């Protein structure tokens, strides 16, 4: 990406995250099922990994979690950021290595990524002394995970499309956007490229006369 298109993508991502947190803090509360609200910020974090690969998933996931952290009060700043970063990276890595080109699995992968983000949030939070996260018990945590996963699956395709728009170059057309959502961003390494990068000797022909 050129500097200009990088800046444009950054602005678009920030706009999406700002919209996400506004929707989370208002509309999200209207969607509560058994007192559990969807987690739109983690949805955006894992969607960015699904669209942009592990690196962009980590960066956007971190940013998404950080923005969410600013609107919480009982947990330290950085906890959601860390969970979003790791979840975005994991989903991006999974997509780049095993699921390239399969948009149909987006709801499943995004739902699993959201559950992973929740688990990381609770486990890391517990480790750093946030015992209240596990106080209501395992059954309640499973309920939260189930509701968040269902909501993530429902909203996965719009979130992936939104992130594809935000992370795409400014000259993107609607057709290119859907192509981005299906194949990931240009420059996102696929499984063969990653394998080749790990073992360059296998693809290099030895000069004649040299063993």
């Amino acid at each position: 990406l050129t500097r200009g298109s990088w800046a444009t993508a950054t602005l678009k991502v920030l706009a999406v995250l700002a919209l996400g947190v506004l929707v989370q803090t208002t509309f999200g509360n209207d969607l509560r099922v058994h007192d559990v609200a969807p987690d739109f910020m983690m949805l955006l974090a894992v969607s960015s990994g699904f669209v942009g690969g592990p690196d962009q998933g980590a960066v956007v996931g971190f940013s998404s979690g950080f923005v969410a952290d600013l609107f919480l009060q009982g947990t330290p700043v950085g906890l959601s950021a860390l969970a979003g970063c790791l979840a975005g990276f994991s989903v991006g890595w999974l997509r780049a290595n095993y699921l390239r080109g399969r948009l149909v699995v987006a709801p499943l992968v995004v739902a699993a990524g959201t559950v992973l983000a929740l688990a990381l949030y609770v486990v890391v939070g517990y480790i750093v002394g946030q015992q209240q996260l596990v106080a209501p018990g395992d059954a309640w945590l499973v309920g939260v995970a189930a509701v968040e996963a269902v909501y993530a699956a429902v909203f996965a395709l719009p979130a992936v499309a939104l992130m594809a728009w935000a992370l795409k170059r400014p000259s993107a057309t609607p057709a290119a956007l859907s192509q981005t959502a299906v194949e990931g961003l240009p420059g996102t390494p696929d499984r063969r490229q990653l394998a080749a990068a790990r073992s360059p000797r296998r693809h290099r022909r030895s000069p004649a006369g040299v063993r």
Partner: protein
Amino acid sequence: LLLVLVLLGVTLITLSDRSGSTGIFAKVRSYAREAAGPFQSAVHSALQPVGNFIYGAVNYQSLERQNQYLREQLAADQAAAVQAASEEEQAQAVMAQEHLSYLSGIPSVAARVVGLGSSNFEQSIEIDMGSADGVVVGQPVVASGGLVGSVESVSSHLASVSVLDDPGFTVGARVVGTGVVGAAVGDGEGNPLQVEDVNIGEQVKKGDALVTSGLPLEHFPAGLPVGTVMSVSSPSGALQLVIRARPFADLADLQFVRVLLWSPQQG
């Protein structure tokens, strides 16, 4: 890149944890809330009809049950001429029994509840009063009935209140009519409070009222109604009673609250 972000996250968590509720991170959070406030109102107004529709759809069973329950309740009330006193009356009765006047002498400001906390892991509400109205972090918040919680963070015209049933919320509580003191701890939305640190052998029974203890280092004035004891049990081998209490205030339906302009130094 991942390693750098993980280290950055861990650093932020550490610094935020150490800075407490009045440090730089609390200020950043309050500025973020302040900045988002007008946009939140706009987004909420725009999406509320959709939200209400979806809420009605996904909670249809629950609403139907609630409707049925309310019909039965209404019929029962009409037939039995309503014996139970309202929560506020109950709290007033507790105060009268203790010869205390509820909230008298403590200045307060009324506030409207404008939102709920966005996390599934904390029970909090947003109110439309902030530092410009004299609200500061730590002040007690009450509603008709009794204690609701305390101010957790504040910006110019908004404040976040940590609610009594938040798992991280603890308040010293005294059983009315006895000298028994324990700690009432939140246990998640809709769940009864747990009253801890009451030794086996202490005289506590179902129906006893709890008020804030007001002991030194407490963040609440003495005598605010907290809740009613729902159950008391003493498991074999345990050293302390297992006590559950229902909050006096209706935490599920908070629309207006009062912030007590009180600090522990005044107490």
